[in-house]
């Protein structure tokens, strides 16, 4: 395997694996919750990066996949009595199908039009679910506490969900790496740079874009199922929060657009930074404004993000930082 000899593959994978394993080693539940959130953001950002960073399509509705996967998974677990794993997989499959159909339709739009359409899709789906009584409508659904017994009790259920979160995070990072270093990924990068030229060069852009879109949909769907399982309840407002998509984009920008490691670094940095801003006595009241200024500075002065900047500044690190 070419991958196994590539240091940059191991850098990305091991960072996620080691960081993810840390709470397992220490057994700290609090560390687990902290890391669980970071891993979830890694999943969201890494998968979004396939469409945003590699293919160049600005997707504001990425969170729709998270919400759909969460809803389907939650419905199967709480109402149908399925086990978490098949429920999450079923949620991911349905979400992938949804992404395939949606992608084939809206990926015809380019630039700002596509970005706007994704906002519209997220809002339409959210509004639809609010009106869908079988899925609990605006009230959402709750899960009986006894369901956790099947996973060795509620405490254990959280560890199970966490373990699966690590697996999904690793899968999403490996997929991101796989795409980035493959012929398929090169095609996506060409589409990002100039879609018309890419078409003339022989890249079947409509198909490639749709595949990228589907790939990017699977992981947030899995994460959504895990997250809401852990949560014990689901509501449309939490499942389709547009703001979370934007946060995902910010993470990617922070870490490095179009790189494998960037979204990982971006997710962790963003999460820690926010935690700091929120609790720092100096920034507490102005944390949002401060974060805004920071974001603006990054976009203007370090547009390639942390990893991108390192790669540009020190070409030697390119071998290890993909």
């Amino acid at each position, binding site marked *: 395997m070419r991958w196994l000899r590539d240091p940059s593959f191991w850098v990305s994978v091991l960072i996620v694996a080691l960081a993810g394993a840390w709470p397992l080693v220490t057994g700290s539940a609090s560390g687990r919750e902290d890391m669980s959130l970071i891993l979830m953001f890694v999943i969201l950002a890494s998968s979004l990066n396939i469409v945003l960073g590699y293919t160049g399509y600005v997707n504001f509705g990425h969170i729709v996949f998270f919400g759909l996967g969460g809803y389907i998974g939650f419905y199967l677990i709480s109402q149908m009595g399925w086990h978490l794993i098949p429920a999450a997989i079923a949620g991911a499959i349905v979400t992938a199908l949804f992404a395939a159909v949606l992608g084939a339709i809206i990926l015809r739009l380019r630039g700002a039009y596509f970005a706007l359409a994704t906002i519209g899709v997220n809002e339409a789906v959210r509004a639809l679910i609010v009106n869908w009584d079988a899925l609990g409508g605006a009230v959402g659904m709750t899960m009986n506490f006894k369901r956790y017994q099947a996973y060795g009790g509620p405490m254990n259920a959280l560890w199970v969900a966490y373990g699966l979160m690590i697996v999904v995070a690793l899968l999403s990072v490996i997929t991101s790496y796989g795409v980035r270093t493959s*012929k398929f990924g*090169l095609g996506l990068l060409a589409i990002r*740079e*100039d879609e018309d030229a890419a*078409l*003339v*060069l*022989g*890249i079947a852009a409509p198909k490639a874009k749709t595949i990228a879109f589907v790939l990017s949909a699977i992981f947030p769907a899995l994460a959504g199922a895990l997250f809401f399982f852990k949560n014990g309840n689901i509501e449309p407002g939490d499942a389709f929060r547009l703001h979370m998509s934007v946060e995902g984009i910010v993470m990617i920008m922070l870490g490095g657009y179009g790189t494998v490691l960037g979204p990982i670094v971006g997710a962790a940095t963003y999460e820690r930074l926010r935690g700091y801003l929120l609790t720092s006595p100096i920034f507490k009241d102005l944390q949002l404004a401060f974060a805004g200024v920071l974001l603006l500075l990054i976009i203007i002065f370090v547009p390639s993000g942390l990893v991108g900047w390192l790669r540009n500044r020190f070409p030697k690190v390119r071998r290890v930082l993909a």
Partner: protein
Amino acid sequence: MSVILEIDHVTKRFGGLIAVNEVSFLLEEGEILGLIGPNGAGKTTLFNCINGVYAPEEGRILFRGHDITGKPPYAVARMGIARAHQVVRPLNELSVLDNVTVGACYGRENLSLGEGRRVAEEVLEFVGLAEKRDVLAGKLNVAEKKRLEMARALAARPYLLLLDEVLAGLNPAEVASMLNVIRAIREQGITILMIEHLMHAVMNVSDRIVVLDYGKKIAEGSPKEVANDPKVIEAYLGDPELALSLLEEGK
């Protein structure tokens, strides 16, 4: 010799404007055909019809015996038609090598990434861009970008190469070296259809020439025949004196 490309009564309209009007001609395998005509004559539009960017309203385009009319550009590219654009379109944020690798991987031979890289290295050597392989394409100068455009098309290992004003904007030395490249490409057995404004150059390298004016084909033949065709001189160049002098220069 066999016919590689057949343009059969192709018409392309934009609203009321007829950009290409019932144009027909044949292209033999291994030949260099120059396509000339004043600005707005429909040359680039015809290219766009051939490689699938536009679907013509009427007529057929046959490539190696297959009807490719209205096929999407990527399908046409896979069948072995590559194109270098008039306005260069490098993939700016990718390295020169990656740019050419894209051409190789998604071209006629549908190579794997590794094989594509190898082909790309060869082609870069061939067009003289080898030492720039790791530079981002956006950072090249105009002449280098033109070469890159050409390299990317070549890497696809096409049967037919569409060259759209690849000489425009180059200084005389660069033109000369690019012409050498074009000749060398033909040596490899690749058929070339080229749009060119530089008269002496196109007269020099083309085996035959087709002249378009207002979307219509007004002349076809050897450079010499075309150069002496009064219709061409009148319609295309307006000033016969100037035209003749330009054509003379080409000899």
